[in-house]
């Protein structure tokens, strides 16, 4: 992107992002203005604090995890491309995409990629398995204070039991996909981006 902090989005960047994520031109420009409004430091990247500044995220049980999902492994800053890449997971799956010649790599908003995103919310250590502890953490975040640890533990155990087919008391990504095969992921993980 060049050494100069640029607040203008160049055409070729828009084209790149369009190809990679499938957003339309107007959606990209709209999201870019959102990006810049969040970017208080005006250095073309967002840090975790920038996200945390959004008040509604503070009262979202999974807020911090989702913020985390924007940042690639080990990094603390995310640029606009990374921002869009993460948001692309939430694009609705369109019918005509299935009909046209299938793209070389799987689009970011395919069902598998959506589920991978959801999977990564649990799996913090990126070992491709959701362990009992990781599940417990997420459950704890989503549940009120009236459930004791024991109860939550038993819920976590039963949940793993339901999904775990190879008996390693962890949920792998394949098991995750399998147990959610009846769920309408396309609808539950899509939002309508305004044009």
């Amino acid at each position, binding site marked *: 992107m060049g050494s100069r902090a640029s607040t203008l989005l160049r055409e070729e960047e828009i084209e790149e992002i369009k190809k990679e994520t499938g957003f339309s031109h107007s959606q990209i420009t709209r*999201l870019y203005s*959102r990006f810049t*409004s*969040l970017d208080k430091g005006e250095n073309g990247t967002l840090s975790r*604090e920038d*996200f*945390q*500044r*959004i*008040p*509604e*995220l*503070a*009262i*979202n*049980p*999974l*807020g*911090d995890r*989702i913020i985390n999902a924007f940042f690639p492994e080990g990094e603390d800053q995310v640029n606009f491309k990374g921002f869009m890449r993460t*948001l692309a997971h*939430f694009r*609705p799956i369109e*019918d005509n995409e299935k009909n046209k010649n299938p793209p070389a790599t799987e689009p970011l908003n395919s069902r598998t990629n959506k589920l991978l995103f*959801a999977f990564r*919310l649990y799996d913090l250590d990126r070992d491709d398995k959701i362990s009992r502890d990781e599940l417990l953490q*997420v*459950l704890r*975040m*989503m*549940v*009120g*204070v*009236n*459930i*004791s*640890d*024991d*109860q939550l533990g*038993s*819920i976590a155990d*039963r*949940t793993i039991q*339901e*999904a775990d087919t190879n008996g390693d008391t962890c949920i792998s990504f394949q098991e995750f996909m399998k*147990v*959610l095969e*009846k*769920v*309408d*992921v*396309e*609808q*539950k*993980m*899509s*939002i*309508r*981006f*305004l044009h």
Partner: protein
Amino acid sequence: MAERWRSALLLCLLMAASSLANSETPVSSSTGNETTGTGHETAAITTLPIVTWKWHHVEVPYLVALWVLVSWLCKLVIEANHNVTNYIPESALLICFGFILGGMIWGADKVQTFKLTPTTFFFYLLPQIILDTGYSMPNKLFFTNLGAILIHAIIGTCWNAATLGLSLWGCHQGGAMGNIEIGLLQYLLYGSLMAAVDPVAVIAVFEQVHVNEVLFILVFGESLLNDGVTVVLFNVFDAFVSLGGGAIDAKEIVKGIVSFFVVAFGGSLLGTVFGLLISLLSRCTKNIQIIEPGFIFVLGYLAYLTAEMLSLSSILSIVFCGVCCQKYMNSNMDENSIQTVRYAMKVFANGSETIIFVFLGISAIDKTIWVWNTGFILLTLFFILIYRFIGVFILTWFLNRSRLVPISFVEQIIMGYGGLRGAVAYGLAVNLNETKIKEKNLMVCTTLIVVYFTVILQGVTMKPLVQWLNVKRAATVDLTLVEKVQNKVFEHMLVAIEDISGQIGDNYWRNKNFEEKWMSRLLLKPSARKKQDRLFNVFHQLNLQDAMEYVKEGEHRGSLEFIRNESAFVDFKKKFGEDYEEAMPDIMAVMADDQGSLNDPVSACRRDPVPSVSLEMHEQNMRGLREAEGINSHYLLDQHLYKSRKQHRYRFSRSHLDINQDENEVQEIFQRTMRSRLESFKSGKMGVAPPKTITKHTKREPQPKVQPSARFNRKHKSGIENPVNPVAPSERAQVRTPGHLHRLASLRTSAQPGDTVRDRNLLTPPPPPHRDDDHL
């Protein structure tokens, strides 16, 4: 054997009815007989009669009751054979029974004495069906798809009417129909009455097919809402026919369009007003619970009649009455009343539906309306199908461009095929004025044939078609725990992404909307229940079921004495403590006496029960416990998962309490988030406090009410420690003051490098919540 006996009974009843009717002058079942009511013999009597035959005295009500009985007996006979009803929908079979009965009456009387008159149909049979659909309408689904439904209802119906009328007229001009006297206007009138998809038929056919709920609500919603259009079109064209072709100019057409808006919106508004009236009433009926269920029926019917009186759309009125009042009624009324209303509605609706279909069959056997015109009838059938499909495809194409989940091609086919015509069309046809419309009989006949075609043929083939096309069916399985958790995760994710990307998405009502603030206060009883009744009731039912099973098992073995397992006794009172005491005093009373271990399976498990006398009982115990534990997990999750912002909108509540819960949940989440952020922040950058993060939040955070204090405290008294606990106890006391966020801020700003000890105290990850074992 039983069926044959029943059929024989049916026939006997019918012959009796027919011969009774035969012995008097033929009369339609709905119109009164002038000679009833007098009852007294006018002939001179010579001696005191001990018993007299007073047929005239009771004729009309007797016949009505008898017909209702006969129709319901038909249903009984039909439902006895499930293998038949799997292939042929019940409505089709009822029509066939109607044919048979009609044939018998015709054979006895040579004239059709009983038929479905419009008055009976529109005033006595239809309202309860529509009220039932409105009352049990899945509101959330209905309103999310309202756009699609309205487009199909309004534009689709107009399209159907116009194209049918014009095509038939075109064919008439082309000579395909021979010599009949129908002008363009009459064709349009005919088109308008045939255009409407019928709700009764749709329910009857779709209910056996179990398509997925979105598809169902689209077709069904359309069938309900198109009444607005049908009424307008019918009245407009009827008036035009009366006025004659010459008097129609632009002014009349404009008036027609205006009347559409008035009729449709007026009807809906009227229905809403009645719905609110009922809700308000249900708030005050605590002392007359015995007739509480009756109000909805009376007021619903009044809504229907008032709309008829004002020439607005009566179906729309009663639908919206049901839709608006269901939520408040279900929260305000006593549980028994709710059950009563639900069951009574179903009884009336189903009963009426049965009668309608039987009479549709009977009405066919009437020589006066047997006017056959091949061209007219066949072309009507053809055009109805074709234009329905074309209309659906075009409209759905438009809709899919803005829908989140597009309607698939297969579903569109089902939508097109599900455009069933029914009794409403027939009723309207019979209402045509004979003098102005010479070919009324032809129209009635065609309408009947179309109705039979759609209900019988399309009804029979609907299920195989759905299966063949592999349409997505309704989800019948319970959600697994994983799915439940994951659904929640998805919800929270979506809300977060919407916030991050600055989209509004589906959240049009960001703040506690008008509905919760004003309507709930006004229309809901301010009784104090902590959680929603539903959950308690299900929990209660589950426990009752378990209890009943144990009793059965015990009685089987002699007595219940040995099941009592002292060491597995769980003090239900202690576990849930004072929290639930006021909330469910009746359950408390029951549970306190019932010392079964089934009340709290989770804790019972932990308690390691001593094996009871009978080993098999113990096994059953453990099995039951394990299953119950599974169920318990589900219910724990259901109760305790934080709601996302989307869900907050759709809850109904007993005003105060749920709002308080929101505040608490929000506080909990907020504090937890802040703490974890602070931790990670501290570990990242040493000791530089970021005051700026706090100030922004102070403004947005909703001010907690003072009222929840008592409840907030008690919720946590039962021993499960609040993760906020590591913060100084006085912190919690001050949590409820408006300045609580400042306090948190001040804590943070005081977290200077020098203050290490206190820091560590604050910032250690929440210790595993202390468990007080006796409280479990």
